[in-house]
């Protein structure tokens, strides 16, 4: 199996962004894909009262988060009653260890995986690989990026950065599939290759979309049937989820599901919706004999402590914020160098890796608000970006920063520039004099304003400021 690169490497954001922008293929693939997804989403909500549904979704998530500790306890109790073994992991390492221990206890050598972002976050594949357990991705997109030795570039469509031609070449090279532009053929070949692996896998690992506390039900949304196979064919199924994915009641799932599929891919409903509440019962013919749930914290409980940052945990991982983000569309998911790319990545990753590592993330946004506008659970993403920018420069004595690595971006020069700016603009007389002098000297204005003038002409100061004109007018 090809070795996948590690997930978090955010330091090289700038050079990677430059490279992506200079690559017409990436630009074209993403533009086409995103334009398509934007239209599909719009069509899928046709005839719905989208605002009312988003309010409902946001409220369900907020209510769940408000009761998170209780709901998690209830979930554990219910699942245990149903015969599911529940494990708690404080971070990714502990979660990986738990999964390995389960594999070792079963003497398992192969793991087949359904799509799961949290296992990407904890780099489970690397870990298992290091412990001589083979982990194979079974989601088509994940399978493709795994073949390519890459990480997903989108949370819903992991291989969206590749077009059909590239995928065909990759499959040809790695698996001997014939070169073809026929998507049906390529999909069928992959499916065939994966079927065999399913039959022989010792353990199936999947993610979870919603965990229902009231009934102890794990809900899994998917289109390819691989999720259903992962959770039913191997004799042991391990579900992995972040602790925030819990909801109170079964009736909470329907509106969230309606929002999730339409926001993600513009589908009214997915092909498969799995509800797992326990292992095979003695009288049943199919299903695993052992089911586990690993609840992963990995920095989430620290977000939970803060009234504002908490909103990050509402996310239902639909990817709509990426699909609508003009920055993501230009640079693609790999530029971010993080498990979760795009807008949600910019507000979630700083908590997972700290602001010292992730300090560029919150700045890489024009704050256009498209992400917040489409988010089905109304996460105020732009406001959170501003909050994290403030944290990354320790810019607010009234509200001291809390996120790990805060202040890492504060530079002496930049801080002084803002101090000077603030000093001048807080003194009207100084401001008026300064702007008047600048307008008089406008012919001396520098023509080179760094990044700005690389692409644009320098803005021209007016001959007289509005202040001056209004003053003359009143005389």
């Amino acid at each position, binding site marked *: 199996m090809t070795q996948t690169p590690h997930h978090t490497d955010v330091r090289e954001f700038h050079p990677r962004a430059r490279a992506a922008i200079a690559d017409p293929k990436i630009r074209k693939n993403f533009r086409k894909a995103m334009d398509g997804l934007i239209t599909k989403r719009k069509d899928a909500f046709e005839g719905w009262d989208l605002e009312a549904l988003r309010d409902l979704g946001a409220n369900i998530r907020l209510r769940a988060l408000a009761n998170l500790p209780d709901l998690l306890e209830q979930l554990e109790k219910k699942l245990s009653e149903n015969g599911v073994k529940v494990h708690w992991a404080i971070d990714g390492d502990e979660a990986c260890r738990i999964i390995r221990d389960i594999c070792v206890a079963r003497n398992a050598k192969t793991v087949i995986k359904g799509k799961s972002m949290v296992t990407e976050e904890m780099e489970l594949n690397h870990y298992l690989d290091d412990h001589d357990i083979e982990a194979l991705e079974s989601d088509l997109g994940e399978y493709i990026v795994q073949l390519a030795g890459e990480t997903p570039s989108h949370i819903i469509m992991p291989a969206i950065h590749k077009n059909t031609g590239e995928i065909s070449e990759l499959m040809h090279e790695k698996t001997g599939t014939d070169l073809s532009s026929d998507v049906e053929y390529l999909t069928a070949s992959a499916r065939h290759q994966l079927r065999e692996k399913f039959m022989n896998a010792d353990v199936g690992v999947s993610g979870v979309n919603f965990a229902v506390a009231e009934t102890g039900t794990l809900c899994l949304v998917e289109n390819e049937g691989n999720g259903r196979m992962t959770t039913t064919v191997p004799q042991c199924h391990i579900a992995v989820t972040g602790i925030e994915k819990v909801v109170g009641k079964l009736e909470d799932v329907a509106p969230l599901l309606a929002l999730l599929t339409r926001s993600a891919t513009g589908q009214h409903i997915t092909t498969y919706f799995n509800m797992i509440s326990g292992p095979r019962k003695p009288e049943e013919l199919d299903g695993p004999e052992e089911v586990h749930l690993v609840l992963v914290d990995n920095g989430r409980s620290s977000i939970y402590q803060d009234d504002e940052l908490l909103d990050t945990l509402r996310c239902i991982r639909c990817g709509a914020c990426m699909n609508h983000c003009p920055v993501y569309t230009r640079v693609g998911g790999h530029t971010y160098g993080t498990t979760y790319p795009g807008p949600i990545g910019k507000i979630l990753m700083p908590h997972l890796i700290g602001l010292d590592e992730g300090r560029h993330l919150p700045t890489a946004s*024009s704050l256009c608000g*498209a992400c917040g506008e489409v988010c089905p659970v109304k996460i105020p993403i732009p406001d959170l970006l*501003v909050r994290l920018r403030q944290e990354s420069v320790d*810019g607010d004595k009234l509200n001291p920063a809390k996120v790990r690595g805060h202040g890492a971006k504060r530079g002496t020069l930049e801080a002084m520039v803002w101090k000077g700016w603030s000093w001048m603009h807080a003194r009207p007389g100084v401001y008026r004099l300064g702007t008047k002098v600048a307008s008089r000297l406008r012919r001396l204005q520098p023509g080179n304003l760094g990044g700005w003038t690389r692409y644009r002409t320098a803005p021209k*100061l*007016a001959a007289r400021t509005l202040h001056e004109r*209004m003053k003359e007018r009143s005389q």
Partner: protein
Amino acid sequence: MADPIKVYPPKPSHVYFYATCLVDMFYPDAGMAGIQLLEREGIRVIFPEDQTCCGQPAYTSGYHDEARAVARAQLDLFPEDWPIVVPSGSCGGMMRKHYPGLFRNTDQETKAAGIATRTWELTDFLLNVCHIKLEDLGEPTNVAMHTSCSARREMGIAEVGPRLIGQLNNVNLIEQVRAEECCGFGGTFAVRHPEISGAMVSEKVDTLTDTGAGTFVTTDCGCLMNIAGFAGKNQKPLSGQHILSFLWERTNPGKEDNS
């Protein structure tokens, strides 16, 4: 933070005009046009002399102490209960949407919240408070429009510009594709991430040029500087104007500058 509910006031006798630093220094004509449009509606326009900047550049850069110091210097400029009109979606958005949060748990909390509820973007104010009726005196022409993201999403006024232009009999508004996509300005974003911002504005200039209108108007000076600056540097056949200047010129030909 909850958005202050937008309830349009009755047409007032007076308004405060908050120019924004970009209008003050770079586009004073747009400011004059806005003032004259208001005066033509029979409104007395008060221009508080001590105004400087709303504080947004520091705010979005994370320097909230510095932003607060500048914003604080604006809070006492509007003593009467008159509306505050701003010829910019983004500075209007700062005052309307972000002032309350910026001053939370300070002595100025109430004052900031009060200012937020009476801040209006000027074109919105002209259309929905003044119920302005525009009489087009210009030659037939085509124009495209770019609505800034803050006008569109923070102030919720994407429809206002097209409706105002729609009142002009001789102006044909041609819609660009992806009208709701950001032009890539984003304040310091344009300088911190020049390549990404450059790619965004380049595509925006293309979609605006593709309308064939040759000119575009916008509610925000940041977008104007960005889009027109790119078009200028790359010799694209596209020029831009603040929507207020455009509306004033169409309805007062030959009298653009009567300051």
